[in-house]
């Protein structure tokens, strides 16, 4: 894990600004630390030499001024850091959303967590770690230079011990890395065990195993403790090295300047100045080490974001305007890493007619719809519309000619009217009502407390699956597109709902190019339809649902 990921600098402009501010604040803070040490050592030395309060009043007042300035700087840099953190998070989040919502849809759950809680961990990284990293570079160097000017022997002591800290920490780290990595993975497993067992308690109770498992929980927890302690013994070693070296070096400096004072080689003010500064050289190193671990979570989240941003999907989009005409599949293959979804399928979906595709699960029915929606691209072969290769067509323009009724449509936490308006945001309420009527939604609307204005709740939980599908049909009616794609329109609906959906689909597909994917045999009979029966591209064995 690198201390400062260059991708973070490249991606979020806020990070660059923040880094500049942090360096500025760090430099000012370094100056104030040096100034304070000089002022304090002078006051003590002069007072020792007999100077009174009145002569020293100005210098002492300067110490108060430094205190106020340091406080202001600490407050300002923390507030600024949190502000840049907010901005950088926003930039990363929006890039993530931009990237993942173009092209084809993908797995959403993890992305939502990453974009919210994951990125929030960056606060610590920006506000606590990065400024400290700057100080860890600036302060030791500045202290060393200043001390060298005042007393070169002390400077040598600091110059020799300072590099030992990162060196020893690296040595300890290298020596223990393999061991700790092994132990962390063991820890993770043992920690997971307790959660697993607690979550499975009802199951354990059912099989009368809960009591037997209690002893196991105890044993695993004890193992967990022993393993943790083993890891900590090693993990704390680097902190140990740091502490011992830092304090011992300060002790060495103190003794060394003590003796030189004694022999009269050094004035008291210089000795005090060096003594006050010596611990300051080591302090930022200790702090940065402590904060490094606290900020790791944020860095890990950022790395995950970059992994998503770096993933490419598909080639460049076409530019041709949306064609019309017969849809033709020409020797189309769709091969996923784990299975083959379509193997060289050729088919024609004539314009203005309805084609019904049937076949068992895993035969590739949904893949055909995904091809037509441009959610999937053919691995080989081509899909043409009116003779134009779909790959050359601008996907957004092509989709404007489509209406899609998925099996499980996503309803948004908005009003029913706005949900129906999905593909036609400017439609009037009258148009929406007409579409709803044609989708057999009248009764549903009458039952809702605020009719079309009723908010549907997260993922439309207010409605049953049959009702949700009719909302999708209303979307399709309002979209009024020449091509209509329907995925299992009547599957898993009770007879009343199924009949209502069927009536709506009949009226929707009238005069349009329609593709209906179904394994309901009732769809295949009437005359204005062509039927296409698929067989699975490849048997995958195991249970039927494994093929999905």
């Amino acid at each position, binding site marked *: 894990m690198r201390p400062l990921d260059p991708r973070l600098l490249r991606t979020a402009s806020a990070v660059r600004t923040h880094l500049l501010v942090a360096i500025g604040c760090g430099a000012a803070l370094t100056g104030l630390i040096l100034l304070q040490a000089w002022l304090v050592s002078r006051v003590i030395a002069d007072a*020792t030499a007999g100077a009174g309060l009145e002569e020293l009043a100005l210098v002492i007042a300067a110490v108060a001024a430094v205190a106020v300035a*340091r406080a202001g700087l600490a407050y300002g840099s923390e507030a600024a850091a949190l502000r840049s953190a907010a901005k950088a998070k926003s930039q990363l989040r929006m890039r993530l959303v931009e990237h993942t919502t173009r092209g084809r849809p993908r797995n959403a759950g993890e992305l939502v967590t990453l974009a*919210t809680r994951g990125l929030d961990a960056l606060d610590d990284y920006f506000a606590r770690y990065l400024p400290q990293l700057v100080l860890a570079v600036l302060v030791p160097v500045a202290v060393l230079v200043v001390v060298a000017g005042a007393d070169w022997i002390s400077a040598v002591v600091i110059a020799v011990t300072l590099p030992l800290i990162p060196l020893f920490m690296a040595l300890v780290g290298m020596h223990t890395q393999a061991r700790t990595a092994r132990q962390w993975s063991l820890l993770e497993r043992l920690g997971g065990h307790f959660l697993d067992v607690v979550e499975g308690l009802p199951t354990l109770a059912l099989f009368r195993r809960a009591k037997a498992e209690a002893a196991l929980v105890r044993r695993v927890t004890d193992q967990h403790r022993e393993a943790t302690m083993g890891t900590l013994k090693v993990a704390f070693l680097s902190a140990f090295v740091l502490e011992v070296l830092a304090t011992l070096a300060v002790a060495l400096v103190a*003794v060394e300047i*003590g003796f030189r*004072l004694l022999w009269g080689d050094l004035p008291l003010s210089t000795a005090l100045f060096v003594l006050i500064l010596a611990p300051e050289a080591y302090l930022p190193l200790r702090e940065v080490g402590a904060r490094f671990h606290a900020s790791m979570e944020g860095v890990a989240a950022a790395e995950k974001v970059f992994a998503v941003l770096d993933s490419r999907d598909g080639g460049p989009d076409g530019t041709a305007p949306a064609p019309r005409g017969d849809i033709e599949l020409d020797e189309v293959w769709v091969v996923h890493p784990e299975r083959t979804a379509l193997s060289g399928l050729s088919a024609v979906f004539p314009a203005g007619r309805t084609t019904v595709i049937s076949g068992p699960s895993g035969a590739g029915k949904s893949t055909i719809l995904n091809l037509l929606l441009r959610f999937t691209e053919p691995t080989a072969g081509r899909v043409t519309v009116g003779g134009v290769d779909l790959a050359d067509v601008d996907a957004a323009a092509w989709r404007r000619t489509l209406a899609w009724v998925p099996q499980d449509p996503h309803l948004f936490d908005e009003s029913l009217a706005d949900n129906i308006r999905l593909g036609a945001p400017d439609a009037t309420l009258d148009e929406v009502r007409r579409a709803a009527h044609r989708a057999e939604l009248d009764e549903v609307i009458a039952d809702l407390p605020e009719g079309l204005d009723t908010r549907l709740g997260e993922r439309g939980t207010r409605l049953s699956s049959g009702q949700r599908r009719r909302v999708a049909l209303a979307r399709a009616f309002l979209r009024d597109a020449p091509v209509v794609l329907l995925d299992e329109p009547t599957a898993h609906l009770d007879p009343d709902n199924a009949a209502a959906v069927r009536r709506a689909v009949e009226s929707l597909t009238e005069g349009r190019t329609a593709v209906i994917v179904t394994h309901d045999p009732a769809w295949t009979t009437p005359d204005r339809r062509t039927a296409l029966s698929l067989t699975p591209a490849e048997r995958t064995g195991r*249970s039927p649902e*494994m093929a999905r």
Partner: protein
Amino acid sequence: MSAPEERTAQPLTGGRGGLVRMLALARPRGARFLLGVLLGAVATAAGVGLLSLAAWLIATAATHPPVTALSVAVVLTRALGVTRGVARYLERLVTHDAALRTLAEARDRVYARLAATEPVRRFRSGDLVSRLVSDTDATQDLLVRGLTPPLSALLVGGGVVALSTALLTEGGLLLLGGLLLAGLGVPLLAARLGRGPARRAAAARAELATRLVDTLHGAPDLLAYGAMDRARAQVGAADAALTRAARRDAAVLGFGAGATALIAGLTLWGSLLLGVAAVTRGDLAPIPLAVLVLTALAAFEIVAPLPAAAARLGAVRESGDRLFAVLDTPPATAPADPTPVPSHSADLRIRGLRAGYGDTEVLHGVDLDVPAGTHVAVVGPSGAGKSTLAAVLFRFMDATGEVRLGEADLLRRSPDAVRAAVSGVPQDPHVFDSTVRENLRLARPDATDPELRDVLDRVRLDLGLDERVGTHGHRLSGGMRRRLALARALLTDPALLVLDEPTAHLDPATRDVVLDDLLTAAAGRTTLLITHDPALLDRMDHVLRISDGRLQTPLSMTTARH
């Protein structure tokens, strides 16, 4: 799904806060924690003492005394240099070890209490359980960060103030004030100031999360209907609102850092002022002045770990409240007759069954018969009491009325006695992160491999016994997990098989196939299927509808098996 959420979340702590009770958990490990506190104090004291001693050493050396006057201080300085590192290292080990031992006991108690609690209520969501586990782990956080550092700070702070007071009374008092403000006042005030921003951020974050969920989960619909740009704009607006709130609140959250620096700096200034004035008056010699000022400079290291501890305290307190809410829940079943219920085929006869949670009755007198060897389905909407019925049959909770399996009255038998004859698939059956064999042998530890393979065949599951299934069985599909759960239940050869929503959360295409296979595997066995999904009901012998905790007229009565 019958227990209202508020009941589960209701904290049952009477007066004493979760924080105090969490600390009380550590009492058996008191000696270890005390050792940790002492070691921590030694480490901090060594750090501060080093600088005080060095100040004395240098100020004394400046007066050119004989070398022997310094020799003790020289040796002591080096000793302090080593002591600090060693003591800190040992302190960390000792407190972590004590905290982990306490955590182990807390886990034991949580486990034992949960095992005696009715799971439908307790385990409604996996999220709740994982939160409970991290609440238990918060014990460790509290003990390591919230117990030892403040106590060590108290010890060392007291010592440092005493030393300064001995040198110059007003200097000691000033330091006392500074340390109290920086160690106690600022952390508590910062935590209080942070509450408002945290609340505002949570609200803005919730809105953003809703928008993100809609946009990412609804991506196919949005893309197909060309509405993605609008959805993205909404995410952008929610993100901007959150960012605005965070940027505004940054001004408040920077308070802690600034205030601590100000107090430390002004304390240093004050001790210079007081010290020099005392020297001018002749009340203080120059050597103690150096010690006084440099001690004031180093002393704020003592309170450095406290703001972080205070910031976590609010979250830890909430964890403690939730944890003890669980630990205070009374067991869901009273002691009962432990004679095992005979596991041979028998009629299930339920009369006047009433059950509920606390004062809320969910089942209001249910009569139900499942004749031996038949399949009966109970359907009904969410909240009708279906899962409570399953919980009663699994003996996860007590109830009144009569539930007879053959001659045995299940409500008068102990849970384990009942479960000798009743098994099945509970809602969201848990698959353990282990092998297929281990998951199956849970039900019957003495089962042989051929028996295991046979039962896998019966549920049409083609898996190797040594195959690992992953966390929550994530390497299996949803349908395979249900099949595995049923295989497990069948291994116990139960007299009554209860399937509680065995196809919940499966996609429609898989649902029918899985249920069909489950019912085939259960052929000839007395089976009660509980579902809200009226599919494949033509395969059942009887279908009953439940609503509002009562059974309604049968939907259909088919006499012959389909």
